[in-house]
């Protein structure tokens, strides 16, 4: 290897790693801020979940049938605090206002003469109705609504039907999962890797790009603007060597920034796991194959991002202009990451042909341990092609005087 390439890489890395401000913003702050934000969010979410577990749901029931209160007490013990009201005129409006003000969590309105109409069940038009109101602004109200409409009221209906048939068991018809205490066939590890697979690719993709963006812009557009690039180009070093040196060092810095950010997530996972579906690090194991695939995929993704950022920075005559060129690409990276995280695209090989999006798909496949050689090789080929093309463009721009001098 050309020793001068190493000199350029060393100089670029020294530029970043001996600048306390850059070390702070590129390497420490991403991990620290993510750790802090996710810990706080995780604790808040965990606290909210435990509060929900202990919350007593306040319901106002209009025209409640005589046995409903007993049924609810027997069914849920003290989880519901019932206030019964007789008429449904002004009182209903007052109840709904209380629901809007979040002083109650739900309002049930039974039809007038509900019990009587139940008794006349043989008349086809006698089926009474229950209206359930909730306030979507309140989490407690949302919980109460789901609980009432999917569990409490259907079970209450089943109990009434049982009475009609003379035996509650007759109305049950069949049970679901009565003896099946563990219906999930997926291992905890698989569940954890599914959650990781939906989260990590977007994190890695965004962190990698964000880590490379500011430094990459400064490395070329900034150096052009300051006049330091031309000073290097006056030495008998091939321009390709200068370009390659900058690419390698930017990739290293971007990887460092990404590792810092991921470390921030992983270190605080015990505190933030409620944000990630209760994921437990103990359930996660990564095989050697996955590590190898991950390493290769990261290098390729870093290559694509670094060549993209440096090519755009090379065209720009100032840091500001470079920022304007790179920001739309950052948007593409964000959208690609989100689409892959939401599960789009993994079912067609052609999607692996799309640069950036395909790279994120491969990362997702690696984390859920479903990577296929076809998907991986297809995307690797495309990534290499993109890197090569951008390198050629970059090399060409590097030789064009009008792009070499900023200002």
């Amino acid at each position: 290897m050309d020793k001068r390439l190493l000199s350029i890489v060393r100089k670029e890395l020294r530029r970043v790693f001996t600048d306390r401000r850059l070390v702070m913003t590129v390497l420490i702050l991403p991990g620290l801020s993510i750790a802090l934000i996710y810990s706080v969010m995780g604790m808040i979410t965990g606290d909210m979940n435990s509060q929900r577990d202990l919350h007593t749901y306040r319901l106002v029931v209009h025209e409640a049938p005589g046995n409903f209160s007993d049924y609810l007490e027997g069914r849920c013990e003290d989880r519901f605090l019932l206030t019964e009201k007789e008429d449904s005129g002004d009182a209903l409006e007052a109840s709904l206002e209380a629901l809007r003000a979040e002083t109650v969590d739900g309002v049930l309105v039974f039809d007038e003469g509900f019990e009587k109409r139940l008794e006349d069940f043989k008349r086809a038009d006698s089926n009474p109705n229950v209206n359930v109101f909730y306030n979507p602004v309140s989490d407690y109200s949302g919980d109460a609504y789901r609980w009432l409409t999917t569990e409490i009221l259907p079970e209450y209906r089943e109990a009434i039907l049982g009475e009609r048939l003379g035996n509650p068991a007759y109305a049950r018809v069949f049970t679901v999962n009565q003896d099946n205490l563990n219906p999930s066939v997926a291992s905890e590890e698989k569940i954890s890797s599914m959650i990781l697979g939906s989260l990590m690719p977007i994190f890695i993709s965004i962190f990698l790009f964000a880590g490379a963006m500011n430094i990459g812009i400064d490395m070329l557009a900034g150096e052009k603007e300051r006049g330091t690039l031309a000073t290097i180009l006056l030495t008998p070093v091939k321009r390709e060597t200068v370009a390659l040196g900058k690419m390698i060092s930017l990739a290293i810095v971007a990887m460092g920034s990404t590792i810092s950010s991921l470390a921030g997530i992983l270190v605080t996972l015990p505190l933030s796991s409620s944000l990630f579906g209760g994921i437990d690090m103990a359930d996660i194991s990564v095989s050697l194959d996955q590590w190898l695939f991950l390493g290769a995929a990261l290098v390729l993704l870093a290559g694509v991002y670094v060549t993209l950022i440096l090519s755009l920075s090379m065209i720009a005559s100032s840091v500001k202009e470079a920022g304007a060129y790179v920001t739309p690409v950052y948007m593409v990276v964000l959208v690609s990451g989100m689409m892959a995280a939401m599960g789009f695209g993994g079912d067609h090989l052609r999607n692996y042909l799309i640069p950036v999006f395909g790279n994120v798909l491969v990362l997702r496949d690696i984390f859920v341990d479903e990577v296929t050689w076809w998907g991986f090789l297809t995307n690797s080929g495309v990534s290499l092609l993109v890197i090569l093309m951008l390198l050629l463009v970059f090399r060409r721009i590097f030789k064009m005087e009008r792009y070499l001098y900023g200002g």
Partner: protein
Amino acid sequence: MKKKALHKRTVEAVRGIDFEVKPGEIYGLLGPNGAGKTTTLRCISTLMRPTAGTVEVGGLNTVSAGERVRERISFLTNDLKLDEHFSPDFTMKFFGELRQMSPKAIEERKDVLFEALRITGFKNQPIKEFSTGMRQKLAIAVSLLHDPEVVVFDEPTNGLDVITARTVTELLLAMKQDKKTILVSTHEMSVAEGLCDRIGILISGSLVMEGTLEHILKTTGTRSLADAFFWLYKEYGGENG
């Protein structure tokens, strides 16, 4: 150096220039702002390619043998800057490595230049703490690190205080004694008069006259370089250039 014509974007910056600088000679390129001095020097230093004609340094074509030219040449201009984050010591080491000098050669040359330019006491300070004059002296040290055969300085004393300017001119004269080929661009008449063996006057992209100071004064019938310059400036339509 042969005739060249240059285009920068759609502007023809320089045309019909033909001059030669010999070893042991200081050649001054004199001209107003925008005359094409910097473009000419950038072509000589390989930072730009002439769109027509050829530029040769030590018999080497600046386009086809750019790297070899850069091994032999030193180019200093105000547009070229050093990374302010680093110290002079690291900067010299880095540029020495790029020029494939041995660590011993870098150290030796660095000591000589730092001593001559009085940088030694500041060699470990970041450049961002330096004054303009100090930065210029360090830029000169970096450009001369590899002991080049050809020295091209664009406005070397521009913006410098009297003491720093004197240090630079003394250094140029010392290099002339060492038989270096020196090309200096300037718009300061006193620098051209006091320093240069031959002077080329560039107006609106054309080399309108060249020769010794005596030759220029005699040809223009004037008594000072400033008078000669203004006479040529009027004669060759500099106002419209």
